[in-house]
């Protein structure tokens, strides 16, 4: 079997998310170096705050400030930080219960090594220099010595005190952009690899179902009617018939094709399924069902650029009506 094709596939998305009143206050607070929690009706303070009580599902809005100092409730040493994690050097993941809170916040803890971290240790927030109203406005936590007043990093002790601020801010943020990128290696599998490789040789290869004898192009390895593997390769086309079409009037981003143009379903000769492609070489308003077309290959391309009329008489409707 020839080697399957592989290619990098990058999925990147900047989700724009709106915030409710509680999340807005919390994240705006971080921008102003204030940590806010939310009080439940039974008197617990949740940090990070949520809009609904996770036990009773009751709506909660009562914001209260908690201290930027707290206690580690559990931790895990991360000796090999991954892309986009808060610190590029080895650090501990930690759940930290801030002073005044009843629940814990997940973040990174900057410490020299795992021996310097333990459950119950005292830590405080290290603020990011640039703050935008996001959880990353907390750069990380750092060890904090309550008794010495100043810790061994020589941090600014005033930042360990509550500010007395409420949930009211000027210019509150109302949304965040949650960017993400994931890097995949895509492989189309056996059937589609064979199809794409044949295209590079300017051939259209479909696969025949052993049960119903239908020829699928492009082949995906299975007959959707019979639910069995297709394996017998069949060369189809290159000519085909337009079975249906639409006229595209809006230019797509990064696509260098003049509008309007026609996008069509094309039943290649010998295929039992229509594939789609652009129709060129004919004014858009003269494209019709039954039009006979053939692929046009751009120099060096691995797939047809578009299909153009062959000049043959139109196909009779009965010859392609099953494929519309």
């Amino acid at each position, binding site marked *: 079997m020839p080697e*399957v094709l*592989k290619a990098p*596939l990058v*999925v990147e998305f900047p*989700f724009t*998310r709106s915030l409710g009143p509680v*999340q807005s206050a919390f*994240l705006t607070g971080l921008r102003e170096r204030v940590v806010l929690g939310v009080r439940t009706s039974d008197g617990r303070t*949740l*940090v*990070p705050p*949520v809009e609904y009580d*996770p036990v009773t599902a009751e709506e909660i809005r009562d914001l209260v400030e908690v201290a930027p100092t707290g206690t580690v*409730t*559990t*931790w*895990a*040493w*991360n000796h090999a930080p*991954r*892309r*986009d*994690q*808060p610190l590029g050097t080895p650090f501990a*993941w*930690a*759940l930290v*219960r801030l002073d005044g809170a009843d*629940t*814990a*916040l*997940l*973040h990174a803890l900057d410490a020299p090594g795992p021996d310097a971290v333990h*459950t119950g240790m005292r830590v405080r927030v290290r603020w990011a220099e640039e703050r935008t109203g*996001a*959880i*990353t406005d907390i750069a990380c936590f750092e060890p904090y010595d309550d008794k010495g007043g100043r810790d061994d990093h020589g941090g600014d002790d005033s930042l360990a005190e509550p500010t007395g601020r409420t949930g009211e801010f000027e210019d509150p943020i109302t949304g*965040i952009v*949650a960017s*993400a990128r*994931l*890097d*995949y*290696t*895509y*492989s189309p*599998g*056996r*059937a*589609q690899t064979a199809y794409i490789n044949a295209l590079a040789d300017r051939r259209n290869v479909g696969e025949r179902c052993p049960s119903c004898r239908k020829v699928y192009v492009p082949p*995906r*390895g*299975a*007959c*959707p*009617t*019979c*639910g*069995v*593997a297709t394996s017998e390769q069949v060369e189809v086309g290159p000519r085909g018939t337009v079975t249906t079409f639409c006229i595209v009037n809006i230019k797509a981003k990064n696509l260098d094709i003049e509008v309007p143009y026609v996008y069509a379903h094309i039943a290649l000769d010998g295929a039992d399924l229509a594939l789609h492609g652009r129709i060129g070489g004919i004014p858009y308003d003269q494209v019709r069902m039954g039009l006979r077309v053939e692929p046009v290959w751009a120099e060096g391309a691995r797939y047809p650029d578009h299909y153009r009329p062959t000049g043959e008489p139109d196909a009779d409707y009965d010859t392609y009506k099953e494929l519309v």
Partner: protein
Amino acid sequence: MTRHLPVRDIAVVAFAQTDHRRTSEELSEVEMLMPVLHEVLAQTGLKTADIGFTCSGSSDYLAGRAFSFTLALDGVGAWPPISESHVEMDGAWALYEAWTKLLTGDADTALVYSYGKSSPGPLRDVLTRQLDPYYVAPLWPDSVALAALQAQALIDAGATDEPALAAVAARSRTDATANSHAQLRGSVPQGEYVVRPLRTGDCPPIGDGAAAVILAAGERARELCARPAWIRGVDHRIEAHGLGVRDLTDSPSTRLAAEKAGAFERPVDTAELHAPFTSQEVVLRKALKLDDSVRVNPSGGALAANPVMAAGLIRIGEAAARIHRGESDRALAHATSGPCLQQNLVAVLEGDPR
């Protein structure tokens, strides 16, 4: 406590799974899935057209493509149109949907399948996208890191220690030597820390795989299977989204699901637990009140093969297959989803008295 018993007897009558491997790049999802679909049909003698309802579980984030499950539908003979549904979750939850569909009487048989190819993407990072998008996902805490927080909480609570976790790993992979589908078998070194306190041996292998089961109701089940695995109850429960709200050393959602599924009414002899990390078995044993008289994960469990989105359905399939073979009379199957056992499903299966 009285529990409402299901209005119809429904059983798992067939189960199949792929060999789970680190990569299956030569196969598309449907190419990987089709052999197990054919196998469960062959076990029962059913044709695709005989199936009353089809339900699948998978995740677009593993494939990196939107609506990826629609392509897999080619493998079930979806044309002409069939009665079909999909959950963006482990196939165990697809089985739950199929079970309720059969309970309504709208269908007598159901095909449930699920699959996951973890090999194309960075699984530890991919799974961060299921976390709270406001407060947690922007920090990219990977799946091992979150499990490690839970493991440390258990160690601090005195519920386990690193040698005990290593023993869970060793027992699982020794048991997996009897499972030809498993990805990690036999003597596997505990290895270095991935995220301390978890070592490579405490973590599941990353791999690709698929599974399928067939459910049938009443007499239909007896026609299709010599010893059906009757589903006496299924329930699933969820814990608070925020990790810092939960007691990570316990799993009240598992306990509640088990209670609602009837697991505590009589002892079980077998438990297939979906515990991808060694430390999670400690939590689940406690929540499910399993003592040493119960055979836990004779298949090797998720530590031997953890195809994401299929591993939970495989737990139900393995438990059912033991009943089919007469190796169990009453078995518990558990599936989980989300970080640190956030969501949990429990099914109780029984064979006819012998």
